[in-house]
């Protein structure tokens, strides 16, 4: 269930967001061919206004200060008439974008910093708690997560894996790839090479499947069905030097010089069917955990780089150097002025804007960026702030 902010919480977050767009509107990245893109502004009530058009960044920033949305999106597609209904827009092509989300990585640490907040009494608990709220008995919750350093490192290594597929296999030059922290629990990888823009949704699905390692047959490394003997080994023309053929053969320790090794491996697995299943397991494991639906959608709107994420108060930020990028520092751009909040958890440790916070009291005086972060996650409520 989505957490909707009300009362003082809503007031505080709105002030913080408007202040940000007033002071840092110039940090928003102007999308290429801006006049051909559709924009969407999500209100704090969860309602999205789509089919908007802005011809320049100034007009957009003015609108953000005025309308004060919780989230700002722009289409990956370019249209002849972006403000018209979808069927009349005139699709010209769409940027190729990949999304890597923390929830898809299945990291072990996630459970320990995932929370449920009771929508009735606002108490929060670490996930895995009983079905109903121990305090009031209600059973409607909002889910949230505070990613830790391990989560970010896990995401980064998945992004690097994606970079390797895109550069080595798909042939995209590294300077044609831009990586962004999404502002919450993931990274977006934008391909700037326009030769991918006219790919249909089906073609993108095929590309996504390649990157995820889905649908790979054992035949690609030479183990094929044989009507007489269950299987036979015949290495493919082109060998095992590149792409998935290389990944699988390296993993299994086979080379084109030894047919026997592959024959033995298939037999050890108990035949071709079992070996095929093993190949499926290996490739799924070695593939990149991207959200395929995001990549295949050619009419989607994506968070605009440089704008705030309504689920955290952090910005979607370009990462020129992924290894040194620290989202808890570089994406935290709300003000430092102090606010008083009431925690919905007994205690909480976190790090933002280069500072460590160890919150052990129910009421805490914290900087605005911490207040908004916790309120957005449903882990605190506003008590007092100076408007």
């Amino acid at each position, binding site marked *: 269930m989505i957490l909707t902010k009300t009362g003082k919480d809503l007031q505080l977050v709105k002030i913080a967001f408007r202040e940000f767009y007033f002071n840092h509107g110039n940090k928003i990245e102007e999308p290429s061919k801006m006049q051909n893109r559709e924009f969407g502004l999500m209100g704090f009530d969860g309602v999205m206004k789509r089919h908007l058009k802005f011809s320049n960044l100034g007009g957009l920033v003015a609108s953000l200060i005025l309308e004060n949305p919780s989230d700002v999106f722009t289409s990956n597609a370019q249209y002849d008439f972006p403000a018209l209904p979808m069927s009349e827009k005139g699709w010209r092509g769409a940027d190729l974008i990949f999304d890597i989300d923390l929830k898809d990585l299945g990291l072990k640490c996630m459970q320990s910093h995932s929370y449920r907040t009771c929508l009735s009494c606002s108490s929060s608990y670490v996930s895995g708690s009983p079905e109903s709220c121990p305090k009031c008995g209600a059973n409607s919750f909002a889910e949230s997560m505070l990613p830790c350093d391990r989560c970010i490192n896990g995401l980064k290594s998945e992004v690097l894996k994606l970079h390797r597929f895109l550069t*080595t*296999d*798909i*042939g*995209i030059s590294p300077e044609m790839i831009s990586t962004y922290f999404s502002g919450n629990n993931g990274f977006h990888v934008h391909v700037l090479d326009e*030769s*991918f823009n*006219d*790919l*249909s949704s*089906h*073609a*993108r*699905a*095929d*590309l996504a*499947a*390649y990157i995820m*390692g*889905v*649908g*790979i*047959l054992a*035949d*690609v490394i030479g183990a094929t069905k044989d009507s007489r003997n269950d299987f036979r080994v015949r290495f*493919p*023309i*082109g*060998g095992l*030097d*590149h*792409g*998935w*053929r290389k990944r699988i053969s390296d993993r299994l320790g086979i080379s084109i010089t030894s047919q026997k090794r592959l024959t033995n491996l298939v037999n050890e697995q108990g035949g071709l069917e079992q070996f095929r299943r093993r190949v499926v397991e290996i*490739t799924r494991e070695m593939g990149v955990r991207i959200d395929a639906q995001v990549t295949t959608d050619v009419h989607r709107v994506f968070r605009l780089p440089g704008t705030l994420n309504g689920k955290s108060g952090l910005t979607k930020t370009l990462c020129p150097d992924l290894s040194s990028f620290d989202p808890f520092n570089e994406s935290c751009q709300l003000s430092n002025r102090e606010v008083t909040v009431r925690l919905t958890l007994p205690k909480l440790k976190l790090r933002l804007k280069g500072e460590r916070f160890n919150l052990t009291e129910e009421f805490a005086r914290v900087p605005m960026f911490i207040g908004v972060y916790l309120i957005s996650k449903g882990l605190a409520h506003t008590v007092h702030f100076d408007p």
Partner: protein
Amino acid sequence: MNFRLGTADLAKYPFLNEAAEYMRQTYFNLDDINLPELRHIVERASNRIRSEIVHGKPDYALERHEVEILTFLVGILIIRAINSDNLTKKHCLCEALRAEKFLARDLKAHGEFSNKKLLIFKVFKELLKMDVHPSLKYQLLLEVKVTDYLKRSHLFHEQEWKLSNRLVHDGRVFLDPDETVRLIRSEVANLLLERIRQMNPSHIPATIMEQANILKSILPVAPAKLGNAPSAYPPCVSHALDQMAAGENLPHSARVMLATYMLATGKNIEEIVSLFKNAPDYDERVSRYQVEHLAGERGSHVRYLVPSCTKLLNEGLCFATSQCEGLINPVQFGRAIRFHSRKANVGQG
């Protein structure tokens, strides 16, 4: 380097702009087709279409370029005069298959950079806007850009055409000559289809009309509808039937699904074979053999089952609706429909 196609190449690829240019240079007039000395060309074109109607197969005979270019031209005029959407698609597919055979042969020509190959690469580039290069790394393979491959390969449902099962490196997909030309088959067919649809001859010569009328009389009648109401079919089967009715070239996997489903629901071989009459490559003998094979009456005598929903999904043949919820095989669809309608009736009562 600037390569010009020779007349021998025009004979194999008479749909190229150079062939049209050649005709312009000969001052050919549409009514010249009525001349007695061109009678054999009209008959040749007519026989070619007759063979396409009866056997669903192209004619691979290759004469000198004047004959081939004229046969092609007369052929599309006859097709235009018959004005049957299904036959037009069938003819375009046969012309594409014919070109495919010659292209593959030329691509396999000896020598990495033979003029022959370079000419073919020029054809790919100019006609289909697709770069094809001989691989410097693998002697027998050709390279196409990943994007060019993806734009075409998604039309294939077989797993081996998925990018995941291809040799991919540095933005290129490596293919053998047969695979390379197979990749563009439907595109060539569509290009021809587009050209025929856009053709606007001032009039149709009498000899063309005469042949068109003869061929019209042997066109198969549309297959009779099967007993079940269309809504009783699962969406995957309905989709395949619609495609077939529109004269589309269904992939092998879709044909297997259609035939096994019809067998499972009790249709006889005759009814099922007639379903495929609209296929551009329809050959009654081949279709009958395949349906009988699936029914377990030939070969290994194993009756084939309807592919599961998961398999159909993987092959891009699933068009599930809310009524498919919980099904694992399309044969369960009828039961699910009956269950839902009983539930609705109870609700109304």
